[in-house]
């Protein structure tokens, strides 16, 4: 680990400790002037007309796996992310966010402004996550596991530039997002090479909390459906099968052309210290004119689902959420501890041994592959800024009965230290 990383960790550990002890209203805004305070984040405000919050997140991962690791050096402690950003508001109707990573060739992440004349009708423009995928559109700092599910990272679109109309209606029981984006997200885009991805993308999502106003535990139920539609040029798709740590198990060497259709559905229930969530995503790529004779082939399919559950086993009482423990470490408590488990399955093409599946890029029945992964984890929020996470992942790729596709059974262990302000 570089000296600069160590220094950054020491500095960031020291800063929140000081901030935590400071009263939230230590520097209350003065009329017509600047004010500075640090509640959840360092914040600057000017006369109630401009508010800017500064955010930073530093993550260090230790990974051990019997499978190859796409990036990093296996067991070595690796500072995976150094992310900084600001978000804030201009007046009462516009808020914004700018976030980027240090030392990345493509540093910009969320860069957008949101105009909210009404709660039920807001317009967001810039680069941000396409409204698809429950887990994919959850902030990295709020995940229940170290990594998102492979279903989310491989099939959900991710970020792109675009404009979106969104809001909540019907007494906030119904949320909607509908936008147009330049492409179909950075998850679907190749980091190099000539693979194809979706063009101008129409995306939409509707979420419903049908019992939002009831007093029962069912008030925390949310269901949602989402879609994207994109034109797809001729080529091999960039959406490929990779394991949690990036080992390729299906290269998607299949000719596609036409339209890409993503469809997703999710359900989430968060009654108190427990939560369960599930999501299903299906990506269908047309193969127009791709047979040997130039006729259409059946679409190339990638599908996946996950089911996850969490339980805050300690430190939840009186806390707004598990990541903001009521009694932090060294302040009369030990923080909060959450355990979680996730089962997921991601498949490409046809993995059944029927109709002579073939690895030909123009096969009617594409011989695909699949992965089933089980992740078990624990998260210790020492305070609202410092988190320690541990995950154990059991992955089962392919099946030995299908001899011509890769198959593998592997355990991986992940530990993450995260410091966020």
């Amino acid at each position, binding site marked *: 680990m570089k000296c600069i990383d160590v220094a950054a960790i020491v500095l960031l550990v020291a800063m929140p400790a000081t901030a935590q002890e400071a009263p939230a209203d230590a520097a209350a805004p003065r009329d017509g002037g600047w004010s500075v305070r640090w509640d959840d984040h360092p914040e600057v405000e000017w006369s109630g007309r401009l508010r800017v919050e500064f955010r930073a997140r530093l993550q260090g991962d230790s990974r051990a796996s019997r499978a190859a690791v796409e990036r990093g050096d296996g067991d070595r402690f690796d500072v995976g992310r150094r992310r900084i950003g600001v978000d804030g508001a201009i007046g009462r109707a516009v808020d914004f966010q700018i976030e980027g990573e240090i030392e990345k060739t493509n540093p910009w992440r969320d860069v957008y402004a949101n105009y909210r004349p009404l709660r039920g009708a807001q317009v967001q423009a810039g680069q941000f996550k396409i409204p698809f995928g429950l887990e994919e559109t959850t902030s990295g700092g709020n995940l229940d596991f170290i990594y998102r599910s492979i279903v989310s990272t491989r099939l959900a679109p991710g970020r792109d530039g675009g404009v979106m109309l969104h809001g909540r209606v019907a007494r906030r029981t119904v949320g909607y997002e509908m936008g147009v984006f330049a492409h179909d997200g950075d998850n679907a885009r190749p980091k190099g090479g000539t693979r194809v991805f979706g063009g101008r993308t129409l995306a939409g999502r509707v979420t419903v909390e049908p019992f939002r106003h009831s007093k029962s535990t069912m008030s925390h139920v949310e269901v949602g459906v989402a879609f994207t539609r994109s034109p797809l040029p001729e080529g091999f798709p960039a959406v490929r099968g990779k394991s949690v740590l990036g080992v390729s198990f299906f290269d998607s060497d299949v000719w596609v052309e036409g339209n890409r259709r993503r469809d997703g559905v999710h359900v989430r229930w968060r009654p108190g210290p427990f939560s369960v969530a599930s999501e299903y995503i299906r990506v269908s790529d047309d193969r127009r004119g791709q047979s*040997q004779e130039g006729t259409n082939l059946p679409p190339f399919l990638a599908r996946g689902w996950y089911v996850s559950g969490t339980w805050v086993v300690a430190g939840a009482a009186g806390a707004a959420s598990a990541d903001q423990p009521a009694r932090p470490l060294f302040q009369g408590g030990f923080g909060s501890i959450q355990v979680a488990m996730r089962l997921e399955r991601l498949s490409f093409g046809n993995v059944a041994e029927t109709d002579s599946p073939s690895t030909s890029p*123009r096969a009617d029945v594409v011989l695909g592959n699949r992965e089933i992964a089980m992740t078990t984890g624990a998260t210790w929020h020492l305070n609202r800024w410092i988190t320690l996470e541990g995950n154990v992942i059991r992955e089962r790729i392919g099946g030995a009965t299908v001899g011509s596709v890769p198959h593998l059974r592997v355990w991986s262990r992940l530990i993450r230290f995260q410091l966020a302000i």
Partner: protein
Amino acid sequence: MCGASPYGLPFRIGLVVIVWTVSTAGDRVASAQTVEELFDDGTVHEVRLSINERDLHELRERYLENVYVPADFQWRDQRVRNVGVRSRGLASRSASKPGLRIDFNRYTSGQTFLGLASLVLDNLVTDPSLVRERVSMALFKRLRQPASRESFTRLYINSVYQGIYAIVEPVDGDFLVRAFGEKSGYLFERHFLEPYLGADLGNELTAYRRVFEPRNHELEADTVLYSPIRDLFHEVNQPVDTVWRERVGRYIDLPQLVTYVAIETFLSEADGVLGLAGMANFYLYRGPSSDQHRLIVWDRDHAFAAVDSPIFLRVEENVLFSRALAFGDLRALYLDVLEQCARSAAANGWLEGEIVRLSTLIDVAAREDVRKPYDDETHQMAVEFLKQFARQRPSFVLREIARERGGR
């Protein structure tokens, strides 16, 4: 209550038999098609490939590379889906009339066609007569040397006639089983990057990898694959004495080598073991429990070079063969096999008969082949030359043999 049926049991059994016979007739016709029929050299077959236009463009554009594209293969009523097709050959590579290798199991594990894992479609562009390869292979078989089975076909790609091709059985595992009864040994193809005349290339095994390309056991260590080949050429370059014969004989079947080269010499092969550019166009096969190699013939498009090519032409250039012929019994065998070739070729006009039969067989298909890189007149002249070769070569060789024997 039903009365007695007017159609008794024998009638019903007969009806069932008739229905079964009719309904399965098509299947039995299909299953009756065998690899022997595919290599039936008395007919011009018809092979059809369906290749996506984009892939076909890439195949032609990148014809110098071994780029595979998927295709559907059809012969008679048998269609094999999702086979792998690539351009093949060395000097014969062509964009307009590509030589093709068909791998039936490239994309579908275990898929075969008539039991074959692959086929070669030889574009015949370096042989204006179109029949040199076929006639040469026939003589090798006549002299009981293992050789690929072949037949002629019209090739259509996406229903467009591509020209006359030879269907050639590749030298692979299936071939080895047919020729030697097993396929677990080590098979190498002479890989022509530069001329090689049998010199000792030293202890570095990679030097031999440049000369002989493994065609099976590719993942095994070079020491396993190439040590016997290195040892062969190391021993070949030692002083010629009785020890030489014993040591070299451990690594190569010397009588088989002599027989093989004698047939090549009779055929006036310009691109074989004693070729103009050094050793070319053969496979080496080493059995599973032996260090001894033997040669398997491949690609005879440059045979029939000259009626009067001497029977010891370029022998002295080749270290291995020139030293082998220093032994009296091997030299005598060489002359004996040459004599066998000459007498066999001349017997009842066999060689000329084969040339006439095959050139007549493909005459129409050849004339309609507009992608061949020579005109019809050139083709006819080449055929006429082969007939002249068939008539004159045996007597020329026999005279040379007599002179050689008389002079010793």
